[in-house]
């Protein structure tokens, strides 16, 4: 049995998929979970946390272009793309302001619920991010066994390879038809200013 702590730290391997030429400082927006802490501390020199509770508003008290990386927790990430966080767009614009050019924003969506990635990415686009890369996480955020770029060819390969047989063919056909979001449970966005 693999300890849950290992699996949960594995989610932080998204860092190997992110374009981050510099890894000096990161900002965590939301709850700073132990497994996120463990992952970020292995890569960044300095980590700051901005909690959205209490007196903290949706504006970020930092100079423009202050961080190489900004990491959302999954609850806020979900709320931002679902437009259920009041002032969510303002917060994303603030994030866009304080992330450095050449930096990256990690925004997880724990429950995809059959929503198309490009629709979920709308708030990020509105906030001014120039490039947004969606990556599926299978089989869940707590068991992040596979990370699949949300593209037709990668999703088709994954479905066919991982499932095999008739089931694999059926799932691969869904992915090939461009509906890969129907078979995937979670994803994260890597957004670049």
């Amino acid at each position, binding site marked *: *049995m*693999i*300890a849950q*702590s*290992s*699996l949960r*730290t*594995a989610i*932080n*391997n998204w*860092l*190997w*998929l*992110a*374009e*981050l*030429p510099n*890894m000096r400082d990161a900002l965590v927006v939301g709850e700073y979970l132990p497994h996120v802490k*463990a*992952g970020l501390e*292995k*890569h960044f020199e300095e980590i700051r946390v901005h909690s959205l509770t209490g007196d903290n508003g949706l504006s970020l008290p930092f100079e423009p272009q202050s961080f190489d990386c900004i990491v959302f927790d999954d609850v806020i990430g979900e709320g931002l793309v679902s437009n259920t966080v009041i002032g969510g767009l303002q917060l994303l614009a603030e994030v866009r302001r304080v992330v450095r050019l050449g930096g990256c924003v990690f925004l997880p969506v724990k429950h995809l619920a059959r929503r198309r990635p490009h629709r979920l990415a709308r708030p990020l686009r509105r906030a001014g991010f120039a490039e947004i*890369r969606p990556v599926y996480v299978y089989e869940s955020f707590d068991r*992040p*066994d*596979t*990370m*699949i*770029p949300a*593209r*037709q*060819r*990668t999703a*088709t*390969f*994954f479905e066919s*390879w991982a499932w*095999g047989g008739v089931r694999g063919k059926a799932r691969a056909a869904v992915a090939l038809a461009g509906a890969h979001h129907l078979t995937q449970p979670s994803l994260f966005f890597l957004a670049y200013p």
Partner: protein
Amino acid sequence: MSQELLSLIGQATGRRVRWDDVVVMNNVALIPPVQDTPGDFVWNRGFNVVVLNRLGSPKFFCKCRSLHDERLAHETTSMLALRNTSGLEHYIPPTYQAQSEKIRVLITRFLSGQPLNALLDGPRHGRMTNIVGHALDCVVELNRTSTTALPDSVLGCHLDLVAEAAGLLEHLCKMGLPESDAQTMRYALDAGNGVSRQLQHGDLWPANVMKAGKKLWFLDFEMFGRVQVPMYDVFHFLRTCADGWALSGQPAWMDEVQNNGVSSDLLRAQMRRIAEKLGLSVEQSVAVLVFYVAHFSVTTHRRNPEGQVWKLFFQEAKLLADHIRQGHVEQLFRGSVG
């Protein structure tokens, strides 16, 4: 950072790799690893990557681990050496390596065949016998050729089985093996001395053999050469084949080997055939079987002493001692059982 991983893979394989060309798989622990936690026995800390071409066809399989992952370093060295050995290039896929300050990557050409465990779904005679027999012939060739080609990896020519297994038997006794059983195994090991060392794959189960057309490719060389007792791979391959065939309630492997039945016949016939092929006497064949069972039981226990799995294999060590006392194991290699 992505550029770091992707350019490492790109430099090693001579092609440009983009972020949406890679699928991360078997992602079980952070690179670099966090501190060990109690009850966590993950040894492959890191993840694997499949690199696709622009049409979506898989081209490369990459194992990505921490730079300090000694197992992957060993596997990389072994695979590169074996791939460059004349006669083995048909068994080892094209292999490349890359590393940076944090990560070590072993890259092999993606093999589009099927692992043997997907094909060995039952001990039906004919096709199954052919597949298992062919796989074992290839294993013997791999073991023989690698031992000749990589003399620096062989720890001296003479193999003292009693000394080699001393620590294992001691550990088995701590696990609860009666001293009388340990003594029986010691005698069997002593009677079979005089075996020459032979490099073994060390983790040869059907999932680590890929069948692509008529060719067989061997994978996962993390344990290569750690065991140098002949037939270790053969026994392990056969036992894991039998595990795949077994239904719930089936007897332990040691009993399965002694039973009457299609799978038992196949197991015995292959064990006997390979022992003869390697020129092992009956006593030597028994001795290497004792070593295998002891080694595997102890390895399973060491890997997870808190779990239940090791108990199954520990029972097999006891069963083996019983069978040796009753003369069944010798008969197995003399060919008079079944």
